């Protein structure tokens, strides 16, 4: 077998196997270097995979050489490739910038374990995305969850511990619900392979266990994806986590759960269970709309900048869910695109916040008055990413918003309501982003006797890379669009 065919496996193995080695790298900075290297390699792998998928065929891999329903199969299609890009890209970017901020927040002797946990988180997320086996997804879900508990618990404030405990409880319940659902389906079909499930579930589609299983899986994953109103764990966790971890998790953690939710529902349930698509839409759409409005409204009044952005993530997840709940080609494409673009915008924003936090301990907005005078570049990047989050044309955020509005206009008589909701929440986004901007640029500079300089170069450069990516993909979104097209086609069953 040649290297290319091994890529799906390598995507997971590389970060996973480098994690134990990292633990042993004690000399200063070595652990960071190793972790960054591993992350970059897996990013390269995901790019190669994306290229291969754009080349036309879905990449599949039989673990241990055992054929599909008996062994564990991996498969990477358009959707997986895009999410992989997001996950590995976020990890690579965050790790590249991480060192100064982490040195500030984590004691030196604990850093090797921290970085190793980071790689494990990456491996877990990647493993979820590439896997085509329901139970295997659960295992890697647990790896990533445990790793992210550890990472968040690294937060300096004592509230971090409580936040992560809540997250642990919620996450475990979610995962266990998923496990129950998978068990019920397995009970009725006798297989764990997703594709095989789809082909075998048809005969038993209307039996009670399968219906209940669909419920369990949807709720469990929604819990892990922080779909409103199951999002209560998210803002605290993001606020209290170490800054670079917030960058990493905000960019991709919940996205992966959404990915599993969408994939499971579109590929296993909807083709086989009559009326399921309507149930799915009717279940998700109200939640999505409520989430968009409520979360945006709450974000407008948040005091802490990280908490504000975290809350806005809940609203953004609402967008993704809304697109998915249209059950239409355009809708799915829009939501997949938004997975990508929101990762860009939020990642950039949190990077900028990390830069600011490197200099200022207190992240309440009114305490950040006039920061722009001392950190002009950081603030400029923050504004750029903020515009992308709002969806100003020329930024990545605009693309997905455009697609989303188009999809809602096509979605039927109620389209206008969705458009209205999207626009209103965009305006709310203007408000909460501009609260930050005004404070940064025109706020009365609080009493700071300490001399403040720009953030360290390492952080700054990476932040700007992210910011410029927001611009680049605002003007040249062909690649993600192509992947999203492919994904939507496959999910809606045109690809097969």
């Amino acid at each position, binding site marked *: 077998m040649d290297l290319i065919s091994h890529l799906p496996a390598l995507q997971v193995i590389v970060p*996973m196997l480098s994690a134990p080695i990292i633990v042993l790298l004690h000399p200063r900075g070595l652990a960071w270097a190793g972790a960054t290297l591993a992350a970059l390699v897996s990013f390269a792998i995901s790019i190669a995979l994306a290229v291969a998928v754009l080349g036309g065929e879905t990449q599949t891999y039989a673990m241990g050489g055992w054929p599909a329903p008996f062994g564990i199969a991996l498969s990477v299609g358009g959707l997986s490739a895009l999410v992989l890009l997001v996950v590995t890209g976020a990890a690579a970017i965050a790790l590249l910038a991480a060192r100064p901020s982490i040195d500030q927040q984590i004691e030196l002797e604990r850093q090797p374990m921290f970085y190793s946990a980071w790689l494990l988180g990456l491996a877990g997320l990647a493993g979820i995305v590439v896997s085509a086996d329901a139970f295997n997804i659960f295992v890697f879900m647990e790896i990533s969850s445990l790793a992210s508990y550890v990472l968040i618990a690294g937060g300096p404030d004592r509230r971090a511990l409580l936040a992560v405990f809540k997250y642990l409880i919620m996450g475990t319940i979610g995962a266990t619900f998923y496990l129950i659902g998978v068990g019920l389906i397995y009970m009725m*079909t006798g297989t764990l392979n997703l594709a095989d499930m789809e082909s075998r579930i048809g005969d038993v589609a209307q039996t009670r266990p399968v219906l209940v299983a669909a419920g369990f899986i949807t709720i469990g994953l929604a819990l892990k994806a922080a779909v409103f109103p199951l999002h209560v764990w998210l803002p605290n966790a993001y606020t209290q986590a170490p800054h670079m971890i917030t960058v990493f998790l905000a960019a991709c953690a919940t996205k992966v759960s959404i990915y599993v939710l969408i994939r499971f529902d579109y590929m296993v349930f909807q083709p086989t269970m009559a009326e399921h698509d309507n149930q799915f839409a009717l279940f998700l759409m109200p939640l999505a709309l409520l989430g968009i409005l409520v979360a945006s409204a709450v974000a407008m009044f948040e005091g802490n900048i990280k908490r504000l952005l975290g809350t806005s993530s809940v609203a953004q997840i609402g967008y993704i869910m809304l697109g998915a709940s249209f059950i239409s080609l355009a809708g799915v494409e829009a939501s997949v695109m938004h997975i990508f673009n929101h990762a860009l915008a939020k990642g950039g924003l949190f990077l900028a916040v990390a830069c600011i936090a490197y200099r200022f301990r207190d992240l309440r907005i009114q305490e950040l008055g006039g920061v722009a005078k001392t950190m002009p570049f950081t603030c400029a990047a923050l504004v750029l990413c903020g515009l992308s989050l709002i969806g100003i044309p020329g930024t990545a955020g605009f693309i997905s918003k455009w697609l989303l509005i188009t999809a809602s206009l096509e979605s039927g008589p109620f389209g206008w309501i969705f458009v209205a909701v999207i626009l209103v929440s965009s305006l709310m986004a203007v408000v909460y982003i501009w609260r930050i901007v005004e404070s940064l640029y025109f706020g009365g500079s609080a009493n700071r006797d300490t001399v403040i300089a720009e953030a360290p170069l390492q952080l700054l450069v990476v932040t700007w890379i992210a910011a410029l990516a927001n611009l680049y993909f605002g003007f040249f979104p062909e690649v993600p669009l192509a992947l999203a097209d492919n994904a939507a086609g496959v999910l809606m069953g045109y690809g097969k």
Partner: protein
Amino acid sequence: MIFVFSLFLLSLLIIIAIAIVQAKNLFVSVMLLSIFSLLMATNFFILDAADVALTEAAVGAGITTVIFLSALALTAQRERKVVGGRTIALIAVGVLASLIIYATFEKPRLGDPNAPVHQHVAPWYLEKTPEYIDIPNIVTAVLSSYRGYDTLGEVFVVFTACIGVLFILGAKPASLRGERNVERAGLRHHLIPQVVGRLLVPFIVLFGLYVQFHGEYGPGGGFQAGAIIATGVILYALLEGEAAALRAIPRSVLLGLVVGGALLFGGVGVVCMFMGGAFLDYSVLQSDPVWGQQLGIVIIEAGVGMAVCGALLSIFHAFAAREIAQ
């Protein structure tokens, strides 16, 4: 006959579960929890799941209890009176329960041989294993070859938990009073437990090794073995004091075990890749694929054993050391 017995056990399970939730003394609930796990293990055994029963007994009833107790020693013994929030919870779980029970009445009955579960994949395992892998214990075969990737993931879950606990408890305690004062004497001054314990420890470890290497033929394998050996060492630590245990197996060695085990498992997979197979495709390890499979299984089971044993012990020590630091 066996059905009636299992009915009795299951009912007991429910009763104990309720007792666990009701007990106000955390120590009591933890003890009941370990009994709960033992009953669970018994049920598993009745349901023909020998490996799972062994694991549940070793991990659920053994290790879990130890960790819980060492955590309790660092925190509170009793829980405060709960105020409110019950009715909502009751309603929620009530709905959930009725939902699941609603679902049960279209499930295949217990032991129904025509259940879909027994139709599709499972028979293939039972029928092909002698041909492809040729070891008696199908569970081990599935665990370490057909679904070896899952098992790798599982090892890494344990690994994550291990470094996680080390990371979280590695933080300096808020108040470092008397850093590592006089090491606890363990049960030195109790003659009888010490003698008996000393007598038992080697046998426990021996049994662990047996379970490890007999896994292909009988119930057992890396996880169970790792857990059992860990239990033995923990018993030693209880008798001789934690410091003595650390003298016997220092932390670095434990970490080495964890890392080594994880890497051993992964390494085998990578070697398979280099020898032209898929990841974890042991058939390529030897000229004869069946031999290759068996070889691979032995190695990765060893890796699993090392990793699990090391991880559980490191976790135990992390808690115990905390105890001393306090």
